[in-house]
């Protein structure tokens, strides 16, 4: 350090031209077409708030902010000495005074260089030295016993002082009876009177009031002085957002930031919550924010749109791109919200950006600091109290009514594809035992009633059967150590979740290693490696399919425990009288949920590894070149095990009797033998299906940053960047039919399975690849004058291959201008303690996103022709999309005005942002004339507008030594409206729970078929049909939507959170509430024209229409008898309608809507820090214990929901609601 600076000093004259030369060269090479460096002048004020800043960094900061170089010509001060900096617009003189305070040093400023040297001693000093009398030495420590280097130790009243060395030791010579003053920024000053020579050890206590947050903003590209940053961004420190017991970091954002909504559409590990920053911006796109981890954009392994997150399909398990991050490694989140903040992400910024910063090694003088975090979590089982599900006795009475009306008769009930207690009863009646010459059940009324009595009394608690209070453990160990030039952070964590239900479990390991190093004052860099391995088990599931004809989504063989518990009749039992698993019937085959979960499950394996490196080279103090690169490889494999005895396999094999053979859809009819009986294609073994998703990702970026202050008041920061992103995706699937689990995994290929596949065009394996290529150039200029005014302009030029081969569509420039005014820096601002500071920001700019269209040139795919016979098949190439020469990116123009206010000596912060967005060129379906050859095109044909307001108030309301209260309240309002959309959606699309898009309404609005009362004679429902007539039938495929009712948006318009933390001495209590308002929810589709004896029913059923006249009092339709179901109901034209239609419609009617408003007690925690006395005995530096409850209660929600979670879509598959859980968290540091 020292030497280099001296040399520079000596060669200063030569240096200047050389520097200019380098400058020129670099400019020419890297910025030729991009930027012009403009001249500017100097300034000399400094702002930095940070603890334990090394002097070296202080000097760097001085150089950066003021343009002054600091040189040392003495070894009495070491650049590794740390101080706690708290400067706000301090002059250079003030800063230098602070640095050399109480040290035997002086400084001079010459020619933009500050030279620090040993103080020339005055005569008096020399005399005093002569009379120096006693010598004191000792060690200064913090309250945890760690040595404190750099503590100022001085003699009170005179200018005699030293500072402690790296080990915290000091030696000072003072007069007898003097008072020693120990001071250290961030700590309370202590005074000790000395009487004789000897040892005085001192420990200093932290003074929290002195410490304030680092005043910088990390955009992922740059770490910027907040003064130069003019956008709307919210910093969330991991410490403040801790969600112990919740292993996915995306949930740490719940309720933390105004304008960021986190909706838990599934609580299963690995499934991403639906995160929206400032609401939705696209009609067909993902609407997902961009995650940036340590400056590198995090790519999704599979791209699952926000809408698709709620399907419950198995791929949602890898939907969360951040599931491989260890929450303990996170330092902070920075959420970039408006166009000014996200401008650096240009054409990927439309949905906001979440910048994650992970922990770095710190300077510890080489001492390792070890910390351990352990979370031990247990789940609470859901209970029937919160749901309106009939108990077994009530359900039995409904079943009896159905039986009286003609259902559950022997012929149909004993041979159906699925059956519960009646099915069982009828089959028992015919279960003949030749030994005893009797039937298992006598066919008389009393025997039958006796048989059913057991089930009427069963009242099975399926939640108790399927859910567990099992343990989720997380262990995380991190080591952090560092010297001045080399800092390391290493961590590893292990998560084991035994699952809230049977059949679900997760193991996750993470490892993280990060080094920051400095080769020379000019060259520094970092190296990161992190990886995670996940092994997850979930109940087996197939993909959800939609059937628009009858208006249903369905999933074959769904065994989702939560759906099962909610939907399964409580009359059925999991165990028989002898305690053995009791089987009922599904798909013509025996079914018991516990047995099925044992025999049909998914194993998900995921390995994800990233290495990343960065180098920074300071060409001259004000000009820095940096380069970052990363490589990531992720491999995910989902293995679906369906064992020999699983229901699906048995269904494939079930040829037990003629009825079954006739109707079992899993059987195969050989076209070569058209008169043969349908046969099984799976004579042996089960299925072993594999789905693989691989990701390979390179990232490279180089930046050039110029930061200079001219003529004291003019600060300029120019930043140019270019980047390349390269992503290769690969998806594979393989259906292994006939894997014999019980015979050591042998496979006897069943040719008929392949024959069937070959004939029906269903291949047994597949592989597809995807390649995303991006390149971008960005330029950002920031200027601030006297810290009063700042201006910012950003432009970015993005290119991508995703839209296809057209060279015009693939490039898009985006831009942004913004400014800020720090009113409190004006002379007229009265310095006061109540209203401390005020700042106003404004921005206008364009950001964009790639939509879901890729046909800037015509798109062709290959296909095997869909013809029945092998000798007729050939490869065809079909047009998937005609060229759209007008294709462009989805764009958003935003105007944002915001203000940041602080009150009571910066204790309370208030931030308000108001924005208006014009979102245009949105990709949507448009029906064309068809003449070009593509009837429905995907094109930039929709527009939307949105506006919103965000408000946050946060701060340390009370900050006494023993009692502290920190509070944060945020609320955001966002409303969007589609202003242009040329698509004519069907009724079916609009009435779905996840909503549809229609001009004049929200991005996703919920629409209902209008209910129009029950029939007087029979009690079946009527609606207003698409022609406006009262009708029992509404064609769901109709595009005539004038008579649908708009219920409201499916996304809340108001969201927010309220967090409070109280700290009394070593005890902490905190609570987080989240709330949302303004959306509507489609209630679960539970109504059918008839009910099988295996499904649960709603308590609403008790209020159903029973006799004519009831329609005056109830809207719950009657149970119809089979005759009425098939022959009585007429449509408006007099045609007969099957009851299936009106009863299904009921689920999509105005009767089945509730408000989505809620207030949720998200987290409550009680913490205790172990006292020092215990810590020192255990050689610990800190230890704390907390008890945390997560997702404790829904304090308010619409009563009509009857226990249904307004955030959760019960879609089955792998989706589970977020559990209620209690966590014991232990944090220890050594």
């Amino acid at each position: 350090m020292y030497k280099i600076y001296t040399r520079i000093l000596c060669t200063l004259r030569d240096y200047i031209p050389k520097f200019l030369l380098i400058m020129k060269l670099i400019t020419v090479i890297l910025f030729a077409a991009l930027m012009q460096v403009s001249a500017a002048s100097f300034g000399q004020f400094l702002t930095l708030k940070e603890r334990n800043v090394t002097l070296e960094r202080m000097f760097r900061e001085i150089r950066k902010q003021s343009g002054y170089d600091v040189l040392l010509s003495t070894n009495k001060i070491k650049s590794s000495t740390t101080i706690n900096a708290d400067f706000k617009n301090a002059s250079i003189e003030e800063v230098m005074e602070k640095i050399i305070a109480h040290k035997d040093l002086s400084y001079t400023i010459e020619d933009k260089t500050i030279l620090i040297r040993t103080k020339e001693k005055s005569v008096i000093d020399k005399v005093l030295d002569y009379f120096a009398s006693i010598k004191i030495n000792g060690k200064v420590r913090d309250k945890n016993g760690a040595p404190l280097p750099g503590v100022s130790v001085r003699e009170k009243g005179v200018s005699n002082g030293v500072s402690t060395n790296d080990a915290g030791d000091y030696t000072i010579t003072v007069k007898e009876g003097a008072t020693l003053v120990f001071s250290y920024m961030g700590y309370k000053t202590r005074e000790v009177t000395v009487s004789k020579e000897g040892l005085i050890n001192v420990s200093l206590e932290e003074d929290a009031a002195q410490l304030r947050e680092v005043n910088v903003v990390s955009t992922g590209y740059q770490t910027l002085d907040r003064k130069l940053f003019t956008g709307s961004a919210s910093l969330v420190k991991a410490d403040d957002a801790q969600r112990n017991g919740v292993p996915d970091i995306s949930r740490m954002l719940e309720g933390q930031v105004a304008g960021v909504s986190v909706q838990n559409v599934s609580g299963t590990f690995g499934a991403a919550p639906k995160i929206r920053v400032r609401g939705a911006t696209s009609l067909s796109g993902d609407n997902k924010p961009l995650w940036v981890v340590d400056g590198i954009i995090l790519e999704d392994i599979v791209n699952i749109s926000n809408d698709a997150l709620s399907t419950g399909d198995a791929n949602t398990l890898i939907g969360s791109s951040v599931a491989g991050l260890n929450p303990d490694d996170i330092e902070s989140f920075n959420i970039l919200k408006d166009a000014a903040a996200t401008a650096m992400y240009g054409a990927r910024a439309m949905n906001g950006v979440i910048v994650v910063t992970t922990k770095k090694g710190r300077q510890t003088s080489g001492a390792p600091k070890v910390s351990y975090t352990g979370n031990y979590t247990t789940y609470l089982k859901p209970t029937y109290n919160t749901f309106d599900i009939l108990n077994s006795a009530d359900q039995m009475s409904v079943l009896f009514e159905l039986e009286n009306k003609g259902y559950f008769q022997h012929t149909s009930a004993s041979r159906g594809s699925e059956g519960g207690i009646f099915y069982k009863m009828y089959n028992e009646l015919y279960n003949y035992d030749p030994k005893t010459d009797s039937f298992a059940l006598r066919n008389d009324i009393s025997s039958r009633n006796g048989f059913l009595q057991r089930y009427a009394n069963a009242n099975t608690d399926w939640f108790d059967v399927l859910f567990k209070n099992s343990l989720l453990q997380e262990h995380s160990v991190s080591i952090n150590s560092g010297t001045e030039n080399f800092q390391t952070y290493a961590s590893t964590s292990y998560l084991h979740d035994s699952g809230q239900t049977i059949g679900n479990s997760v193991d996750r390991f993470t490892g993280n290693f990060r080094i920051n190093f400095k080769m020379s004052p000019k060259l520094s860099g970092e190296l990161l490696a992190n990886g995670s391995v996940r092994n997850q088990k979930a109940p087996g599931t197939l993909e959800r399919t939609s059937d628009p004809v009858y208006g249903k989504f369905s999933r074959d063989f769904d065994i989702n425990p939560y759906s099962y518990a909610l939907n399964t009749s409580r009359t059925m039992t999991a165990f028989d009288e002898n305690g053995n698993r009791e089987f009922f019937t599904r798909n013509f085959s025996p079914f018991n949920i516990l047995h099925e979960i044992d025999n049909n499950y998914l194993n998900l394996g995921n390995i994800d590894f990233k290495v990343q490196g960065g180098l920074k080279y300071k060409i001259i103090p004000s000009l820095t070149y940096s380069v970052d690169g990363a490589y990531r490889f992720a491999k995910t494999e989902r293995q679906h095990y369906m064992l020999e005895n699983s229901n699906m396999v048995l269904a494939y094999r079930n040829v037990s009797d003629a009825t079954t053979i006739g109707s079992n859809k899993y059987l195969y009819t050989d076209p070569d033998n058209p008169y043969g009986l349908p046969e099984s294609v799976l004579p042996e073994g089960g299925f072993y299906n594999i789905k693989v998703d691989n990701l390979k990702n390179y990232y490279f970026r180089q930046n050039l940053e110029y930061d200079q202050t001219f003529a004291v008041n003019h600060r300029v920061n120019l930043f140019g960047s270019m980047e390349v992103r390269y992503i290769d995706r690969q998806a594979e699937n393989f259906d292994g039919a006939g894997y014999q689990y019980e015979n050591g995994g042998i496979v006897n290929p069943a040719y008929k399975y392949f024959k069937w596949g070959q004939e029906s065009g269903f291949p047994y394996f597949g592989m597809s690849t995807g390649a995303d290529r991006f390149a971008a150039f960005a330029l950002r200029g920031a200027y601030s004058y006297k810290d009063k005014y700042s201006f910012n302009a950003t432009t970015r030029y993005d290119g991508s291959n995703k839209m296809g081969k057209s060279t015009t569509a693939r490039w898009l420039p985006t831009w942004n201008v913004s400014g800020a005014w720090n009113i409190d820096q004006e002379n007229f601002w009265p310095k006061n303690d109540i209203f401390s500071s005020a700042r106003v920001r404004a921005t206008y700019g364009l950001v964009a996103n790639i939509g879901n269209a890729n046909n800037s040139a015509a798109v062709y795919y290959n296909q095997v022709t869909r013809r029945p016979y092998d000798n007729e098949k050939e490869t065809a190439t079909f047009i998937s999309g005609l060229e759209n020469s007008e294709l462009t990116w989805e764009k958003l123009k935003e105007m944002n005005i915001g203000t940041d206010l602080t009150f009571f000596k910066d204790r309370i912060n208030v931030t308000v942002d108001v924005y208006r967005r014009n979102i245009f060129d949105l990709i949507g379906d448009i029906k064309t004339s068809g003449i070009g050859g593509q009837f429905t095109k995907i094109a930039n044909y929709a527009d939307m507008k949105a506006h919103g307001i965000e408000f946050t108030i946060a701060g340390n309301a009370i900050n006494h030594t023993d009692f502290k209260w920190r509070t944060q309240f945020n609320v955001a309002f966002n409303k969007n409206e589609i202003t242009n959309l040329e698509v004519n959606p069907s009724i079916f699309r609009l009435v779905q729970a996840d909503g549809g898009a229609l001009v004049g309404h929200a991005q996703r609005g919920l629409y209902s078929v209008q209910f129009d009362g029950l029939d007087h004679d029979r009690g079946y429902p009527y609606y207003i049909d698409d022609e406006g007539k009262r009708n029992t039938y509404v064609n769901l495929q109709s595009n005539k939507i004038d008579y649908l009712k708009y219920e409201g948006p499916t996304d809340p318009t108001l969201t927010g959170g309220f967090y409070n933390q109280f700290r009394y001495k070593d005890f902490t209590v905190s609570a987080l509430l989240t709330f949302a308002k303004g959306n509507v929810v489609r209630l679960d589709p539970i109504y059918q024209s008839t009910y099988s004896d295996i499904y649960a029913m709603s308590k609403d059923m008790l209020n159903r229409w029973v006799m004519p006249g009831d329609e005056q009092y109830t809207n719950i339709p009657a149970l119809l008898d089979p005759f009425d179901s098939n022959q009585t109901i007429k449509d408006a034209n007099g045609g007969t309608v099957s009851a299936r239609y009106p009863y299904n419609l009921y689920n999509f009617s105005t009767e089945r809507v509730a408000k989505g408003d809620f207030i949720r007690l998200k987290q409550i925690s009680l913490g205790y820090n172990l006292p020092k006395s215990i810590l020192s005995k255990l050689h610990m530096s800190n230890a704390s214990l907390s008890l945390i409850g997560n997702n404790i209660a829904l304090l308010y929600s619409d009563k009509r929901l009857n226990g249904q979670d307004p955030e959760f879509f019960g879609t089955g598959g792998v989706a589970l609601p977020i559990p209620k859980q209690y966590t014991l968290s232990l944090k220890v540091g050594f």
Partner: protein
Amino acid sequence: MMKLNKLQILLLSAGCLISTASCKKYLDENPDNRTDINTVAKVAQLVTTAYPRYDYYYFTEGYSDNTEDKGSGVGSLDDVTTRPYNWQNVIGDGTGSTTSYWNGCYEGIAAANQALDAIEKNNFGNDVLPYKGEALVARAYAHFMLVTFFSKPYEINGANDSPGIPYVNVPETKVIQQYDRSTVKATYEKIEKDLTEGLALLSPSAYKVPKFHFTPAAAHAFASRFYLFKGEWQKVVDHATLTVAGNDFVNNLRPLNTTLRALGNEEFRIAFTRSDQKSSLLLTEQYSGWQRQTGPRYGYGEKLVAMFGRDGNFTGKPRADKILSYGNSNYTTYKFNEYFFKTSQGADIGFPYLIAPLLTVDESLMNRAEAYAELGQTDNALRDVNTFLSTKISGYNAGTDAATVAKITAYYAIANPKEAIIKLILESKKAEFLQEGLRWLDIVRRRLTVRHNVYDEAGRETFVELKPDDLRRVFQIPQEALLSGVPLNPR
């Protein structure tokens, strides 16, 4: 682009700054498994999709006299069968709608145009010519079917200045392109140009599965149909003659009264649209639910069955067709065997297809017969008709069952032999192609009046007629065509 390592990317990105070419190359990588039309094989594959992938069966059969009202309460009601029977516009673009066929034709045309565009832009050499010919003929065929359904019928020697249909011969590159309907005459001229030009390039040996492509034979069959509409009788004769080698029609017709008759029902259904049926000249897989229409109220019922019986023709012998019913009077010809394209391992989820025989030897023979009749070559006409009937009538005996002028003028009570022969030809085709949609072509071409029966709820039967000049005989163009400046048909 080859796989890149990190170093290469670094170099590339630096290169990106100085060279836009490398940047372009980097961004030229296809984002997914798509393909480019850059070889003859790809052109051939693309032209494979130049055929309409949706059927015209629902609306052509429904509009025509090949359907009947089976009675109130009989069969099922479904818009795609009910509305055509009542000569109403079919709503929406679902399976079986006029819009879906319109779209299917233009999709085929687009594939042809993209292929022709690729041929023009690349130097593929002479190997590509058969596929160029196929693209041209396929484009002509699709436009011909469109103009037949969506414009007023071509009047032989007429002005034909009523609106045609947009003739598309370049790929569309804008989201909403404006199109002009021009006139029926102009449309026919373009069809003829493509047909003639394409026919010359075709090769019988260019295809792996010839029955699904325009072989020369299939193209000649199409040409015979085209010139029949145009009234160029000699050309009909010439082209029809070229559909089979050596004028061997008898062995290339559907062997209804022999081979097919001998098959069991399920085997018959499989065999009928298989590519080894010699009669089939052009087969296309079409996304359809037609084969699932087991019992529409408006469909093939009791009245229509009669034409297959001994009283249905002049020979006094029944035709040899399969007469099957799904119960009540829900009859079916059982011609179509569904091909179910499965998309999920779990269950019966997928897409239903049928194989549609779009052009057959049977049709071209009858085209020739009609042309002979128009040319006044009565003997030739009768010979062709008799060849045809010899494969259709049960227990056909050439000696006793052959048609003669005397027999048929008497049978139809039509004195004019030409008219009687034409009547016989049309009736024979009606029976032959029941549930195959071709009847409608004859109805518009021959200006036949369609008569439908209607039962009210009390079981009373009335009749309604669709006269030759009724505007409803021209199917309605999709509403969305207005976006492209294409006017709808008057009603």
